[in-house]
């Protein structure tokens, strides 16, 4: 049992850390983290950052070297997430392309697909989104109804996707559609690589409760894909989608690292804000809450390391990722909610009137989605019950 990294891993970290110092926007590390709010400005900002990452060799580090990656180990990926969390680096706009679509194409794509897409994913030239959820298939993903019908050499796609992050900025979509109705919902699904810039694709923003626009509805109205856009086999798309998800190796890691940082900021805030003239951190009740959150945050982090150790030992990640996801999402809500509780009666002033920084209010609201997106807490609990504990499956109704 140890928490030490090898000399090579440390070298990797140093290199990345130095690169971040040199390449993050000026003042970023010191806390001046401003991202343009308008679509265009935001798009440019994120694309520029994606390009910088690529140029520095820090995009898709787990990709094979021949495709522009570093063939990074799992531990290196973890270090990467730690360092990105540490400086609160901007999100990778093309995270879906880099973390999932690219590796999937490398694994099961055709030679043509690899040539056509992979490089542009890594350098951020083409931004990807993921077309999975639909209005009537959220938790029940396999119930999707968007249809793709073959007509000559084209597939004509009709239907609606929802919760498509970044669709408004994306160039292409990794989309699941139903190509056959066998009565078994996991069959007859096909994965397509769809051009977002065509007439049959319309994107409408979803305004979320934190007054942000990240998610979209995507309407497919006789949208077109071609035979060459099919990933894997026709009607075997469900398996492809699982392959894609399996490349999401460190998704929850950054969230967990960030939460531990946010906890530190919470302590900082409690040391600064006062009540009855006394710093909050001196209030015994506040201390109990902080102590409780500390044990939970640290426990979550340690759980992650334990699961990571297992993944490394076994060579593949187990279903324990659901425990990390469930724990991180619920703890995140708790921490942000408590952060607002501590701010007193001004706790819901936000934007330019925020009492501390508006991040607390934004993320408090944002955190409500933690337990919904990427599989609700209810679904995670079912996975943990069924796949880890071996409890009975919910009845297939």
């Amino acid at each position, binding site marked *: 049992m140890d928490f030490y990294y090898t000399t090579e891993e440390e070298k990797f970290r140093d290199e990345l850390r130095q690169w971040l110092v040199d390449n993050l926007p000026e003042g970023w590390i010191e806390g001046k983290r401003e991202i343009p709010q308008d679509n265009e400005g935001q798009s440019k900002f994120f694309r520029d950052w994606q390009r910088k990452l690529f140029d520095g060799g820090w995009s898709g580090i787990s990709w094979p070297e021949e495709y522009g990656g570093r063939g990074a180990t799992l531990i290196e990926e973890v270090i990467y997430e730690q360092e990105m969390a540490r400086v609160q680096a901007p999100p990778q706009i093309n995270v879906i392309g880099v973390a999932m679509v690219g590796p999937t194409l490398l694994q099961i794509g055709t030679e043509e697909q690899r040539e056509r897409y992979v490089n542009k994913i890594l350098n951020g030239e083409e931004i990807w989104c993921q077309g999975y959820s639909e209005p009537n298939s959220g938790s029940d993903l396999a*119930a999707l109804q968007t249809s793709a019908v073959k007509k000559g050499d084209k597939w004509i796609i009709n239907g609606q996707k929802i919760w498509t992050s970044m669709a408004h900025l994306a160039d292409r979509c990794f989309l699941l559609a139903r190509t056959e109705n066998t009565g078994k919902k996991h069959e007859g699904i096909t994965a397509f690589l769809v051009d977002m810039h065509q007439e049959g694709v319309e994107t409408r923003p979803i305004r979320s409760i934190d007054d942000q626009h990240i998610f979209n509805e995507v309407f497919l109205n006789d949208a077109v894909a071609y035979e060459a856009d099919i990933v894997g086999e026709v009607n075997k798309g469900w398996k492809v989608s699982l392959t894609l998800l399996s490349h999401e190796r460190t998704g929850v890691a950054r969230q967990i690292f960030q939460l531990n940082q946010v906890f530190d900021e919470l302590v900082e805030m409690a040391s600064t804000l006062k009540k009855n003239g006394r710093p909050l951190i001196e209030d015994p009740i506040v201390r109990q809450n902080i102590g409780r959150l500390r044990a939970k945050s640290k426990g979550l982090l340690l759980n992650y390391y334990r699961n990571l150790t297992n993944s490394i030992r076994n060579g593949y990640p187990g279903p324990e990722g659901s425990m990390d996801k469930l724990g991180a999402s619920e703890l995140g809500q708790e921490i942000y909610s408590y952060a607002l509780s501590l701010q007193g009666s001004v706790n819901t002033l936000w934007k330019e009137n925020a009492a501390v920084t508006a991040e607390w209010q934004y993320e408090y609201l944002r955190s409500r989605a933690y337990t919904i997106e990427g599989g609700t807490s209810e679904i995670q609990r079912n996975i943990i019950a069924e796949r880890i504990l071996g409890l009975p499956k919910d009845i297939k109704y």
Partner: protein
Amino acid sequence: MEFALNEEQQVFQRSTQQFLKSKGDLEIPREYSEGKEEVLDDLWIGLAELGYMGITVSESYGGLGMGPLTLVPILEEMGRAVIPGPYIETVAFAAPLIEKYGSAEQKEKYLEQLASGNRKFTVALLEGNGELSPTNINVLATQKDNEYVLDGEKILVSHADFADTLIVPVRTGNNEQDISLLIVDCDSSTLQMEKQISMDESRKMIKVSFNEVAVPKLQLLGDENTGWEILQDGIQGLNTAWCSNMVGGLDRIVEIATEYANTREQFGQPIGRFQAVKHKIVEMKMNLETARSLAYYAAWALENNTEDVVEAIAMARSLITESFIQSASDNIQVHGGMGFTWEFDCHLFLKRAKSLENYLGSPEDYREQVVSELVGNKESLILER
């Protein structure tokens, strides 16, 4: 022994509900927060026509001469629709305080207008970091002839732009509790107002700056330097009212969650069939009914000025605030992704709940008050006679 709304109160409940529905129900806070501030004027006129502005004003001034219990059903309904506007500040704070502490001139000047809907009050209470304590009241009132000259700044003054009269605790001496209440007419004063952006856009928060604002001494509510004490009285009214308002919110949340769980299908079943969802809504229902009981009791205690009134209100306030936040959060979870959209109503309740969390004191503060009262006064009023 009868612990329920009486028939008259039920009538109030129904007619408020009808009225608010006719005005757009949950569209009211939405339109208001999108900038259509005229909905507030419209609402106010309607409330006055129904006689609801005068509920706590004595009959001699054109009111109904009723107490906090009568407000309960009205406030619940307002909470159900997350209604904007300073109704609580006007009828549950200003009216009772002026009735109880106001001079004859003040009563004459304000109460009839208040009851007819022509005077809208709010309370300019908090300063600095928003903490409620006598040392945090530092708007200075300097005596000058027959006037006080006010300097300083109040924050989180809800709907100060809509109100025409403010009740303002000011500092009139150097001792901690040398605080006095002034009634400040907005139209006759030159106040600076600046919006403070809050998550809960249905309660517009304003920063009010006093820059050498002269207020006649006649506007003093109660005696000089007794303001803090009077304020405590007023805060009981505010808290009791907000409790019923929050109960309304809880009630609506349970209704919305149940409806959604009955209609939204996944895996070929309404999601309300899954115990994870079903039992979550049951928790919300349990919290709602406990909240309602405590809110009723608080109002009853306040109306009857019982020995345990302070404890009753503190209990209600601490528990209801937390239940409201919890249920509003759970309601979003029940709704899944749709609950996270601006389009669905779920967030209106969460934002309202969270914005009330520490208003006039945190749940911890009120629990502490419960125990202070309890250890001093352990008689159980309702278990035995």
